[in-house]
């Protein structure tokens, strides 16, 4: 996917929901679904849009043992912000109607991790 295609995909998805906007100069755009922040990031290296739904945001740098445990469970850590996320890469443009259920699943997964998954991991 090219950045232009990624922009068009985001724009079409936003338009379907009455939202305006595309990626900014940093290759980022964000939206909040319910109370879950969802961030779209353009990855030049992967030629893909990374959609990240927040599970938890660390206030202090995460301890290596904790990080190892959550990363082994498949969660993604963004060190700049301390955000622990569920991430899905989209390497081909999708119609809004196909993107919707995938984003809903992503947010539901992040919520599941925040409310119950971490409890089990740290029981």
């Amino acid at each position, binding site marked *: 996917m090219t950045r232009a295609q990624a922009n068009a995909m985001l724009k079409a998805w936003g338009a379907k*929901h009455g*939202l*305006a906007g595309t990626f900014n100069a940093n290759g980022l755009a964000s939206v909040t679904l319910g109370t879950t922040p969802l961030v779209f990031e353009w990855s030049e290296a992967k030629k893909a849009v990374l959609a990240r739904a927040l599970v938890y945001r660390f206030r202090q740098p995460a301890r290596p043992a904790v990080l190892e445990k959550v990363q082994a469970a498949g969660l993604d850590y963004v060190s700049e912000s301390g955000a622990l996320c569920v991430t899905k890469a989209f390497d081909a443009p999708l119609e809004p109607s196909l993107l919707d259920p995938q984003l809903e699943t992503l947010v539901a997964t992040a919520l599941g991790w925040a*409310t119950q998954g971490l409890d089990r991991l740290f029981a």
Partner: protein
Amino acid sequence: MGISIKGTRPPVPLPDSKPVAPAPAPNPAELTRAQSVGQIETLKWGKAKKADRTHDGQFIGADGKFYAPETPLADIPAIEPNNGKPAKELIVEVNGIMTDAALHAKNAQVLANSGARVIAIHNATSGMLSDLGQCVLDKLDLGKNPAVDTTTRVLWDALQNSQTIHLAGHSQGALIISRALTDVKNRLMLEQGLSAADAAKVLTKVKVETFGGSAQTFTDGPQYVHWVNRWDLIPMTTGVGATERHPFSSPGAGAVVHVLDDVHKPHDLPPFAEGLVNLFARTVDRMVHGPSDIYYTDRTE
């Protein structure tokens, strides 16, 4: 002739001098009062929605004043009952969607009149899906949600000081509280090394009341009271009223659920010119969902 006193000996009052009354001691409560960062204006819905964004996550205290999200609760003058009812405790309240600051302050006053001091956290969200934010976003911003962040901080500060705290959330406010509680529990586990069970024990100091809440999952630990109107679709489809139908949802261990049976005639509706969505939201509020019309009023009964 004047009297001059020299040297280091303290002055001695003359026999006929009257004692001077000491200056009144400053009231410590006033000394710590925070500076407000704005004043609520009554605006038409469209303008109010835009203006509201600047106050997302801020506190609303007495006299319709806004306070910055980092302000300690003790420094904010709370909204007191204005109906002569004694205030039993402090409640930190979070509003739902489609509620501008002016309406939020009115609702908070109704909650205060049920017998509480109230400090409100303003949730400026106008829907379940926010605008695509992109102006200043960078990687340091990932995961910010102002109303959740303020609620989380208030909770965290109280628990760090071993204080009890009483939160109340209407509609989406319940979802914000649920998210903040989850966040605090996860912080206790991920950053303080507590087990899930020990984190739940810490949260027993928290009291939570939800009113027509749109959250289905509440972490164990806090003392929950949920108010649900059986005619209100929001809690009945997305909140505690629907938890029986969703195996992974929970109102929280030991939760008390009050089921109301209220349908009112709509009244005092805004003009159609202020938008169909606003008219619809206010009609639903007046009839089955509103904090002032249904839930906060019923709390006093």
